[in-house]
């Protein structure tokens, strides 16, 4: 996808090209050009670091949505083993915008459920851009209850612009499906760890997000409304960069800001230059965090786990009295 190169990444991409060309020349002419390449690589590393440590909130949104980022199925391949996908809600159909099934994390069986986006147009049509219908949420709940039945921890990966807004989704009860997941997730008697891996879009994200621990990848975003939607409502302009940037800042959607608000529990570091530059390294970091969190949560008895999860969400919100 040509659109997946982000404006602020252009100097990085330029430098990458330059290094690639040098490599090819060196190979063709059987020369060692390490003297030229090594400093350039160091420069590339530095450039990535500067660009990625100074990302604006809107740029973070672009990174979070980028099609080159690892998706749920990529993590299932890289951070888990023995994945067996389970399909369907047993009521209506299989929603490809959510995938899920049994997998092993560091050898132990877990249930993994996540939104799934597509990398190209064809795949995105099949996955509906990771925007689930009610049947997607009902499949997710079915799998969660299945995991609970066998006392298996649940891992959710959040990556969606939001729940789908359409005729069929409304007819089949999008609201009820999301509400039911919030209700049921609050009382699951097994450890639940949710990770926002890309875009955490509103209720469609939260429907997989009522967890004992909520993690967020360093460049992921989590928001009650899209920056475009917010800017359109407040300033009647959801298109200009200026207004989107204003909305992105105002909404506090980045991982450090949400950590400060107490909405998430941990930030999972991404490789320098973002998760998309190194899927394997991203998967390793996620795997480490998941293993550690699940291990900690396994120590709690089911009643205590549920009580703590409830207390955590019941404490959310700020007001005066």
């Amino acid at each position, binding site marked *: 996808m040509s659109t997946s190169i982000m404006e602020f990444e252009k100097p990085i991409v330029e430098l990458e090209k330059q290094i690639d060309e040098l490599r090819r020349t060196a190979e063709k002419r059987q020369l060692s050009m390490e003297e030229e390449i090594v400093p350039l690589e160091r420069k590339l590393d530095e450039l990535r670091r500067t660009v990625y440590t100074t990302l604006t909130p809107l740029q973070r949104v672009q990174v979070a949505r980028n099609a080159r980022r690892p998706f749920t199925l990529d993590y299932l391949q890289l951070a888990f083993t023995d994945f067996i996908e389970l399909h369907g809600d047993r009521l209506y159909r299989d929603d490809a915008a959510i995938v899920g099934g049994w997998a092993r994390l560091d050898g132990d069986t877990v249930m993994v459920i996540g939104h799934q986006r597509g990398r190209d147009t064809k795949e995105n049509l099949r996955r509906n851009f990771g925007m689930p219908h009610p049947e997607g949420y009902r499949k997710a709940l079915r799998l969660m209850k299945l995991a609970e039945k066998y006392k298996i921890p649940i891992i959710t990966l959040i990556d969606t612009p939001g729940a789908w*807004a359409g005729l069929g989704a*409304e007819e089949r009860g999008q609201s009820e499906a999301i509400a039911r997941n919030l209700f*049921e997730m609050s009382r699951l008697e097994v450890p639940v760890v949710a990770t926002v891996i890309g875009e955490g879009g509103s209720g469609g994200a939260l429907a997989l997000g009522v967890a004992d621990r909520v993690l967020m990848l360093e460049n992921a975003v989590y928001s009650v409304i899209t920056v475009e939607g917010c800017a359109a409502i407040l300033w009647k302009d959801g298109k200009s960069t200026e207004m989107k940037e204003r909305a992105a800042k*105002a909404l*506090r959607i980045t991982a450090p800001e949400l950590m400060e608000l107490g909405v998430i529990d941990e930030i999972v570091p991404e490789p320098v230059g973002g998760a998309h530059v190194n899927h394997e390294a991203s998967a390793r970091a996620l795997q480490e965090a998941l293993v550690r969190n699940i291990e900690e949560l396994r120590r709690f008895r089911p009643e205590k786990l549920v009580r703590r999860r409830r207390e955590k969400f019941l404490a959310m*919100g700020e007001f*005066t009295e």
Partner: protein
Amino acid sequence: MAWFRKERKPRQPRREKLEIPPDAWEKCEACGHTDLREKFIRNLNVCPNCDFHRRIRAVDYVNLLLDDNSYDELDVDIRSVDPLSFPEYPARLKKALANAGDYDAIMSVSGNLGGMPINLGVMDFAFMGGSMGSVVGAKIARLGQRSLERKYPLVLISASGGARMQEGVLSLMQMAKTSALLAQLAERRIPYVSILTNPTTGGVSASFAMLGDAIVAEPGAVIGFAGPRVIKQTIGQDLPEGFQTAEFLLDHGMLDVVSHRRDLKSSVGGLLRHMSGQPAATSWVTP
């Protein structure tokens, strides 16, 4: 069923004193019918001509549902703050407090419905579009907590465009908060009836509004996850007639009862009696 009949008490006027100049006329937003304002009010703000249910205030619903216009208002001192330092939010709050009242987008009360003590929360669209922020979430959670402690049924009336954007993801979390509390009520078998009025969309519909043991809606109320405008934008075509109305949801199995405003109290009362082992409120007449 012909072998019993409801004994109806004569309806009392909703407001003690109606000081309305005789020349105050109002027009129905739906059919254009023009009538005396007093007549609209006597008819609970339902159009005498087309039955369109006009929007009424939270306190009107409280008086409609609870016995003898008597109730205790709860959590009266809780106020929204500006946790994100969101542009223009303090000013908007100030305006809403001045224009819509001081109970934020929900009024919490306890009182009796048909002799049964209940906890009642009524959202008010006049306060920032009935948007759910931390205060709405907290007031609902506390009502639920009171219901848990006293084993009183919970009734919530929704009127909302969704989450309060100005509180960012904290408002999103109120969906989880309210749903988690309702799960506790369900486990303790404490009845919860959800009443949906026009409109009930977004984060409110996708949390506590859709989790009632019974879900009752007013006729014609627009109920959905996404608002009609958003869906129209997404699909690029006009919506079918009656899409997302209470009747549409009833047809699609998403709610239990569509109740005229004048029957709301008896509908909810009947449901609560069944679920809390109370005898019927109707008197049985042998033919």
